Structures are given as C-alpha cells and as structure tokens.
C-alpha cells in the first residue's frame, strides 16, 4: 500500500490551511473598516441628541438603523468565514481523492 496515513494527514492539513491563512486578513480588514465607520456614526447620533437636534424617538430609530447595518456586516463575515471553511474542506478532500486515485492507479473516487 503506497498511502501513508501520516503523510496524507499532513498534506490534507497543508491544503486546508491555505484558504484560512489567505482569507482571514481580508475578512478582518473589511470588518474593522466597517465597524469603525459605524462607531463614528453612533457617536454623531449621540452628539445630535445631546444638542437637542434629535428627539429620543428619532435617536432610537437612528440607532436601530446603525445596529441593523452592524448585524449585516457580522452576517457577511460569517458567510465569508463559511466560504473559507468550504474551500479548506474541499482542498483537503481533493488531496485525499488525488492521493487515493494515484496510489490505486485508477479513479476510485
């Protein structure tokens, strides 16, 4: 048997790690930039309320809209994370398929 469990596992891990290492910095930078903007907006709304340019009801409505935007960013981060995990799993599965088929000499998988 040509296949070795330890080498196969090592190759799978290397393949899976790639997408995770490549994608996370971009996801983190995107989320950071958006949350910074949202934080500034929330501070501005508070300032308008304290200057009595907004009523309490108006301030609450504004904050609700900002909160919804924050949650939407979080949902997107979650989605991008899932897509990254998907790529990792598929990369590892490809290693297994290629290794098994190569060891056997025909396309079993």
């Amino acid at each position, binding site marked *: 048997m040509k296949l070795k469990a330890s080498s196969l596992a090592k190759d799978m891990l290397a393949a899976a790690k790639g997408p995770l290492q490549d994608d996370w910095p971009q996801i983190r930078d995107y989320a950071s930039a958006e949350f910074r903007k949202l934080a500034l*907006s929330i501070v501005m709304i508070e300032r308008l309320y304290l200057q009595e340019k907004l009523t309490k009801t108006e301030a609450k409505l504004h904050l*609700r809209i900002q909160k919804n935007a924050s949650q939407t960013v979080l949902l997107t981060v979650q989605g991008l994370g899932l897509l990254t995990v998907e790529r990792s799993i598929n990369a590892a599965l490809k290693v297994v398929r290629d290794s098994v088929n190569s060891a056997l000499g025909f396309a079993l998988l």
Partner: protein
Amino acid sequence: MLRLIRTSRPLQLWANLSSAILLFTLTLSCTTIELVSRYDASTDERVTELHKVVSRHFRQLKHADSDSCARSEFDAFYSDAADTLDSLIVRNRARPKNTLTVDSLNLLQDSLQKLEALHAQKSRGTCLLPEEIEQLKSAFDTSFSAILKLELAKKRGEGN
C-alpha cells in the same frame, strides 16, 4: 435470551462500522461540498438597483426644501422599495443554504421601515437634517455593501 443479546451486539457494531465506512466513501466521492448557497445574478442586480434608488432618495432629501421634504411627498419611494425587498426576500428564501442573505435582507427591510418612521416623525415644515441624512446614507451603504459582498463571494472565483 442472553445468547441472543451476546450475538446481536457484534452485529450492531458491524452494522455501525459498515455505515460509517460507506458514508465516508460517499463523502469522498462527492466532487465538492457547499456550505453556502450559490451566486444569484438576479439578487445581485436587484440589490444593486435598489441601492441606486435609495441613494437617489437621500440625494433628493438633501436638496428638498421645507415645502417638499415631508414624508407624504415620498409615498412612491417607500412603497416601491418595500415591494422590491419583499420580492427579494421571497426569492432568497427559496434558495437552499441561504439563511445569511435572507437575514440580511430582513434587516434591510427593518431599516427601511425605521427610515420611513423617522421621516414621518418630522413635523410639518421640518426636514431631516443634513447630518442625519449623512449618517443614514452611510448605514444603508454599509448594509447594501455587506449584502453584495457576500453575494459576490458566492461566485467562488468563477467569472469574477
């Protein structure tokens, strides 16, 4: 009775192991797995179009005077935007593994309803302040951008 129990346990173990091996082999034989729904061009186009409409609304509000800024002057915008969102939500609910986009669209729908309520709060002759409009536009831009970012990512590198 005891003999039956003794012989059935190995059989049960063998059945479980066989199922596990079969499932593992079937998993490996699948081409790829998908954790999130696929890209939908219609959603991409309609969300982009809705963003244009909402941006135009904020631009109109910014330039409106005290006679033309009342909520009642913008009936068409609020009802058309609500209809577009309803339709987008229905479409996206029908797609499998698409909860994140559906939840995002529901949040956008809530934001639009809150915007309408905020607009209606202003008494006659009082408009939304420029600073308010700026923050609102920023929040809506963030929401739209997030929805589109996820949708485009679903292309998975194909035809970007």
